[in-house]
């Protein structure tokens, strides 16, 4: 059902908090998992069971340090568990869908609440903005009506956000549809009928320009994306992936922050690479010199192999990289082509099987038969 949450005094955040409070008090959930402002002013996901504490949640804060799908897994994966409303960005929702397929999270007892995304700043940029007069939230909210979202002077949105062509809520139980809305009048919401009934909300339509505004934003972002993909592909063709990742320091931050890279027994944390000292000597003798730590390209190529079909483009890998490597651009660009081969779109549909766990007999029938 479609409805509109009333906004008073142009305070969109208060209206969102109010809605989450209602959800907690009357919507049949026992807790809300949402970005929350710590006493120090940082924004982090938190599991909130006390309605009063919801005054500190801030799902509209334009900052992304981690992909919250990572923390939904542990609170949902097995019974007994709480019935939780999880408030996510669209990219986090897509990551959650992939994690469910990878059996690392469960949608049972979960109410997914996804909010159209304004685009986000990196954590350092967000902190700098907070320190220097604050983040202009009103401007961002107003810009959602037209989709003309611009970062504040001297700052840019995260690279992944600038090329995000899926910033709008889809596929969730509850969707706060900010694009195309005059938010001073109210927040258009799509939610299940029984939930609307429990919350005492009646059917109402928003302004109706969401589709056009989303189309416009998607078109603009797709253009940016394609330009950046072309740039990184050119670089990979010219230098190879070993050129693009030449400055990698092997901290594995990209893997640690990646919402899809869930393996607790990751190959690269295993003793497989604890070679005998003499083995390194053999390699050094064979090639004359041998980069250490060893297997840096093997790390990136294996990670591409393991997760690129599920890469949803949140970009936290790039944010986490101390060498400032374009990890997300590489993974998204390679992912786009590889996903296309399997006609797979990560995060699209939880019932769609992962490409590498399924097969049909009558596909790629010429592969392996070459004479």
């Amino acid at each position, binding site marked *: 059902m479609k409805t509109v949450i009333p906004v008073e005094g142009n305070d969109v955040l208060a209206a969102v908090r109010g809605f989450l409070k209602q959800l907690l008090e009357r919507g049949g959930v026992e807790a809300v998992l949402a970005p929350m402002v710590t006493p120090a002013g940082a924004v982090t996901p938190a599991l909130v069971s006390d309605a009063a504490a919801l005054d500190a949640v801030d799902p509209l804060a334009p900052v992304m340090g981690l992909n919250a799908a990572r923390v939904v897994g542990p609170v949902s994966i097995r019974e007994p568990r709480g019935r939780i409303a999880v408030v996510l960005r669209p990219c986090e929702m897509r990551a959650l869908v992939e994690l469910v397929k990878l059996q690392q999270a469960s949608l049972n007892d979960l109410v997914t609440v996804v909010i159209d995304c304004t685009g986000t700043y990196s954590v350092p940029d967000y902190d700098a903005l907070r320190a220097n007069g604050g983040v202009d939230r009103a401007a961002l909210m107003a810009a959602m009506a037209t989709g003309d979202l611009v970062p504040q002077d001297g700052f840019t949105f995260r690279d992944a956000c600038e090329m995000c062509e899926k910033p709008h809520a889809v596929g969730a139980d509850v969707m706060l549809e900010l694009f195309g809305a005059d938010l001073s009048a109210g927040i258009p919401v799509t939610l299940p009928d029984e939930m609307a009934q429990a919350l005492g909300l009646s059917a109402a339509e928003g302004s109706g320009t969401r589709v056009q505004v989303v189309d416009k934003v998607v078109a603009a972002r797709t253009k940016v994306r394609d330009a950046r993909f072309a740039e990184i*592909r050119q670089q*990979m*063709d*010219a*230098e*190879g*992936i*070993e*050129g693009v990742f*030449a400055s990698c320091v092997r901290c594995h931050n990209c893997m640690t922050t990646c919402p899809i890279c869930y393996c607790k027994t990751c*190959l690269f944390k295993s003793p497989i690479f604890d070679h005998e000292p003499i083995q390194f000597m053999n*390699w050094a003798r*064979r*090639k*004359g*010199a*041998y*980069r250490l730590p060893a*297997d*840096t*390209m*093997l790390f990136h*190529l*294996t990670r*591409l*192999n393991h997760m*690129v*079909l599920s890469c949803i483009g949140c970009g936290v890998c790039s944010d986490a990289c101390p060498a400032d490597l374009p990890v997300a651009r*590489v993974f998204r*660009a*390679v992912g786009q*082509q*590889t996903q296309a*081969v*399997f006609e797979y779109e990560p995060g699209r549909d939880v019932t769609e099987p992962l*490409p*590498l766990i399924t*097969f*049909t*007999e009558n*596909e*790629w*029938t010429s*592969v*392996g*038969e*070459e*004479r």
Partner: protein
Amino acid sequence: MTDEQFEPKIVAFLCNWCTYTGADLAGTSRIQYPPNVRIIRLMCSGSVDPTYVLKALLDGADGVLIGGCHPGDCHYQSGNYKARRRIVALKEILKQAGLDEERVWLRWISASEGQRFADTVTQMTEALKAKGPNPMRQEWAV
């Protein structure tokens, strides 16, 4: 190293039930084929982790051959179908990453196809000779 002297090294991951047995048949049938292939026997083409292929290529192998049972003949019902998808994905990723995916060959060779095994190794050796050495052979910074 001149092209005449270049002898490619092929790392072959062969399934126990079909291609390895096919290679064995090539041997017992005294079929001649180039000595450029180093065979590693696995239980199934479906147990070839793409990381094995990557490790071989990055350490300088000139080619990697994955051999399995023909579709429908897998000893474990579906291992080769899964291998097929994995190798399709791997080759796409190699191509996108600026690496030469043509150095990776997947071939279905049954236990009775000793000649096909010998032909495959011969063709692959020739193709790799034409390509020249894997540049990763000299690359220390990978």
